[in-house]
């Protein structure tokens, strides 16, 4: 058993931060990811709430959802990019012949995802204050940070899921990086409360942590919900992360057995 070498581990984690950062800053589309799509989506929905003449609480309800889904989308895509960039460059085998653990891949790319999505959050919350008079700080700093932590952790959960699918199905799975979040928007109550969903979807929504984080944060704006919402949200994340850690190990083992790492590098 090799001894724990913390500086070495941190350098390896930082490698993935640097990699994503360099690729992001060179790619004009990443600017679209941070600025264009979130802002366009935010204004489209925000203006719709004005047109419909919704009151401040109702508008806030929807704006919280829209900003949350933008934060999640930007953060999770960075986690997914850790393998997608290698997949597109056909350099997967060089990453996996290096002595790195999956957690280093994930935590490095998650870190840059958190930074990028926090920028998105700051931008959108500022715009929501200026354009729609919505105050994101009303619940206080503590609840806001807990809410954001929940979103960031959920993002890593989705990103790992995409990575698992990429290792299993290769190029066929890259679409998951853009579609999982949209599916969540449908089920978890981004634009409406989950109570309006038909029965099976309602139960599915309860199995997704985002539902609880949204209900938690909206409770500060007059949409009260019973139960310990944060405990449920973080509890589910803990369980899913543990499952994904095992699954990642299994699919990586499978990729080494089937030759997927080599095939995806050719």
């Amino acid at each position, binding site marked *: 058993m*090799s001894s724990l*070498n913390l*500086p*070495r*581990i941190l*350098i*390896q984690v*930082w*490698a993935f931060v*640097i*990699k994503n950062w*360099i*690729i992001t800053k*060179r*790619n004009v589309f990443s600017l679209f990811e941070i600025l264009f799509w979130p802002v366009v989506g935010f204004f489209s929905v925000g203006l719709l709430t004005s047109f419909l003449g919704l009151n401040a609480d109702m508008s806030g309800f929807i704006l919280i959802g829209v900003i949350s889904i933008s934060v999640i989308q930007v953060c999770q895509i960075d986690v997914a990019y850790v393998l997608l*960039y*290698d997949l*597109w*460059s*056909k*350099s997967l*085998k*060089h*990453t*996996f*012949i*290096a*002595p*790195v*653990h999956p957690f280093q891949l994930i935590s490095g790319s998650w870190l840059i995802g958190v930074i990028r999505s926090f920028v998105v959050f700051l931008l959108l919350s500022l715009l929501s204050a200026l354009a729609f008079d919505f105050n994101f700080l009303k619940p206080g700093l503590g609840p806001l940070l807990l809410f954001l932590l929940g979103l960031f952790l959920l993002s890593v959960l989705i990103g790992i899921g995409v990575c698992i699918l990429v290792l299993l199905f290769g190029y066929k799975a890259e679409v998951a990086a853009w579609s999982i979040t949209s599916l969540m928007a449908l089920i978890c109550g981004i634009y409406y409360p989950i109570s309006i969903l038909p029965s099976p979807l309602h139960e599915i929504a309860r199995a997704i942590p985002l539902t609880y984080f949204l209900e938690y944060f909206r409770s500060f704006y007059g949409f009260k919900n019973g139960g310990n919402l944060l405990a449920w949200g973080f509890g589910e994340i803990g369980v899913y992360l543990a499952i994904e850690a095992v699954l990642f190990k299994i699919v990586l*083992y499978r990729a*080494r*057995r*089937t*030759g997927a*790492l*080599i095939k995806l*590098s*050719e």
Partner: protein
Amino acid sequence: MSLAIKAEGIFKTFRSGWLGKKQKLVLKGIDLQIEEGEIFGILGPNGAGKTTLLSILSTLLFPDRGKIQILGMDGLREGHRVRTKVNISSGNANFLWSLTVKENLHFYGMLYGLNGNQRAEKIKALIKLFNLEEHQDVSFDRLSTGMKQRLSLAKSLINDPAVLFLDEPTVGLDPSVSITIREQIRLIQKERKMTVLLTTHNMKEAEYLCNRIAFLKDGEILTTGTTETLKRMTRMGEVVKIEFKGTISEDELLRAEGVINYGISGNLCEIIVDDLERRLGNVVVLLSQGGAQIKKVTLGQTDLEDVFIEFAKDTDSGMGLCD
């Protein structure tokens, strides 16, 4: 001398199609022993299983069964530890497209845990070693094939590996670049005394670089040995071409020590001897005494390619040769 690589009974099957019903047995019980500091070549045609074997030994691929030891470590159970001591460079190299040469080297250097100063010094030295100075700030997708290959070799040395795997390092390169790359490989190995396992289907490359060679065909090692040993084993020998006037006594040629075969066509006699250095004098004397007037003597050597073809032929006809 201790072993750098030891493989025993390596089998590998690839499955494809619906539920993996199509199966292809790619490696059929490979045994291999490579000593530390050796340049060992795995030679074989396309589809022989060279890359599969190299991928297994470098921990990128798990075998169906068999044992692997790399530098005394279990290649299957201690993959992570093994990866700190090995590295790989492949022909048709691919790295992160939008990263420059220098950035790619920094990224991979970080993956091996090299800290800032240590990494910067090493990268500077590698860029110099592979003449990449002018291209260090060029993104990977704008490099020529030769430059990409040099970057691949530079990356493979970033962690000072004790064992270096080279998968067809000169494939797709033009001859002059191939020669430069081969010279660099030889020089680096000599300086760093690392073990190099190289796959190639280029016989000249194997002959130039390798201390020992294994012939791989259809997932089986036909034989292993030095170039000279293999040539002797096939009894293909070395060729001497003699232009003469007069007559040659074929009976005497047949009786001559060391002569494997001969052929006469007009005024040209082609004789195959087991050891050119030892037999040439005798052969010339014998022909002169028999009444032939020697006009010109040309020496030739058996190509490793001929040796491989001979081995493959013997295997196909069920006469497998062994070391």
